[in-house]
């Protein structure tokens, strides 16, 4: 296949470059600080310890599962918000962003009050099926979904609003059900937005700490993800270990995100 060459614009407007440089500095400099502070000598032993590897595996698995759940549940919510006229839609839109403002620990308490053993839903689950969510890996996923799904929803809703709705009309005149239209026309049209949302969601889930620690607890192998491991280190006064763990999370997420996006979006 031949590629169409697009014009390459070497001169970038300075008015954009200056704030962009500032923005990048704000985001990247602190990381430089972490790197400088990291105890490079002790690195290998910390990174290869059993606890860290277990936590890493758990983090990757739960963040990925959470992103999957968020995609399945969140994209339809975004679609509802962008495309239908449910009464109270704008209030719903506001509610959906609530987990963003909720201090994570409060979020965890709120989850306990609903899904805990004595909670609204959890109590019923426990009495009827004997299922108890807190302190399980499922609880980690639930906490991550709670905290991270809003990112996905907001990003996808933004993309849906930017997309041209006339394509959906055309699909409808061709006899497509609203489900087919959604699946084959709407969704591919907002793929970059969904991808962006999924990235946000995954990263946020990977870094999730407050709600997890409160709702799911912190037990090695089942609920102790990397951020919890880092928090333990901080509380134990081991800032250096916390920094190493954070750098590990950063490395993992940057690697995966760079790899993924290059494959999905196309490099060059």
């Amino acid at each position, binding site marked *: 296949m031949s590629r169409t060459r697009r014009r390459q614009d070497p001169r970038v407007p300075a008015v954009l470059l200056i704030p962009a440089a500032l923005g990048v500095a704000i985001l990247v400099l602190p990381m430089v600080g972490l790197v400088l502070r990291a105890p490079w000598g002790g690195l290998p032993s910390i990174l290869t310890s059993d606890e860290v590897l277990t936590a890493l595996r758990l983090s990757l698995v739960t963040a990925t599962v959470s992103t999957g759940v968020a995609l399945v549940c969140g994209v339809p919510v975004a679609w509802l918000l962008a495309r239908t006229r449910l009464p109270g839609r704008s209030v719903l839109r506001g509610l959906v962003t609530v987990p963003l403002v909720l201090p994570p620990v409060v979020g965890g308490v709120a989850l306990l009050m609903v899904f805990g053993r004595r909670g609204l839903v959890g109590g019923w689950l426990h009495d009827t099926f004997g299922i108890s969510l807190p302190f399980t890996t499922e609880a980690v996923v639930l906490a991550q979904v709670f905290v991270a799904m809003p990112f996905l929803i907001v990003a996808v809703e933004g993309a849906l609003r930017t997309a041209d709705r*006339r*394509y959906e009309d055309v*699909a409808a*005149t*061709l*006899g497509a*059900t609203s489900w087919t*239209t959604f699946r084959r*026309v709407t969704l591919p049209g907002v*793929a970059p937005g969904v991808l962006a949302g999924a990235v946000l969601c995954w990263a946020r889930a990977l870094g999730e700490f407050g709600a997890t620690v409160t709702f799911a607890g912190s037990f090695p192998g089942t609920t102790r993800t990397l951020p919890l491991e880092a928090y333990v280190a901080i509380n134990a006064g081991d800032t250096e270990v916390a920094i190493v763990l954070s750098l590990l999370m950063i490395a993992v997420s940057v690697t995966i995100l760079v790899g993924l996006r290059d494959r999905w979006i196309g490099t060059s």
Partner: protein
Amino acid sequence: MSLDADLALTRGDLALRIGLAVGPGEVVALLGPNGAGKSTTLQLLAGTLVPDGGRVELDGVTLDDAAAGVHVRPRERRVGMVVQDYLLFPRMSVLENVAFGLRSRGLPRDRARAEARGWLARMGLEGYERRRPAELSGGQAQRVALARALIVEPRLLLLDEPLAALDAGTRPVVRAELRRHLAGYGGCTLVVTHDPLEAMVLGDRVVVLERGRVVQQGPPAEVARRPRTDYVARLVGLNLLTGTASGRTAELPTGAVVALAHDATGPVHIAFPPVAVTLSLRRPEGSARNAWPLVIADLEAHGDLVRVTADGAVPVLADVTPLAVADLGLEPGGQVWASVKASEISVYPA
């Protein structure tokens, strides 16, 4: 299958109020100036716009009834549509675009694709199956859009300038293909076009819209012969005047008088072709009983002739040879006499 529509919609400064009936198998060509409401009409019929008033019935089934609050959704209408800007699904291949409607109606993938392939071939697009819409030229995209709409054999087919972007070589081929398809097709068809030839070739009947109203309709030949508005007259290349006749003369609102070949009374349309107009520098003394002094507004070559636009009490278009232009020294702003034989003029009630 037949369509019976009575539509009312106010959109910006367009107040659309039209009644439209299309019989089974009938092809109606919808003509009209830019902004007349043609695309809006199609959108209303497709169900992507909701009328403010009136009703739409297709095949006895009510699709819209504003008073009763009925509005059938686009996908349940089985309406095929080609829109002015194609709207090919950007992330599907050409083949998938064409097969989309059949797939949506539940056909297995392979059969849908095979049929889509056939349609692409008929549109002269073999080998383009795997392209993305962004990789097509304008005319290619339009043909894909047409194939996508035709393949689903809808009950109502709505085509908005379906051939506008086609080249001179492809247009007759695709037009013939379209005509063949429409001839063997029991549904109702509405084709919007700006090309009078296309309207004549494809349309069993012509409906002319202006400012949201139907201003003229009838068989193509009838409409072409007896235009009722300036727009139609220009479309078919006739001069059109409106006046009040009594006996063998008609008076225009400007006070000018036109001699007629036959008796007529009351408000009339007066039509004559530009080639029937003779230009001269002095008042003509021949048998032409109509002669008016005019000022030349514009000259434009077309084909072998030059079209002269002249203004005055009786504004006319005249087609003359380049030789005549040179001989008479015609140029914008020049004075000239235009004469038309009464026998060249057709008169019919306004």
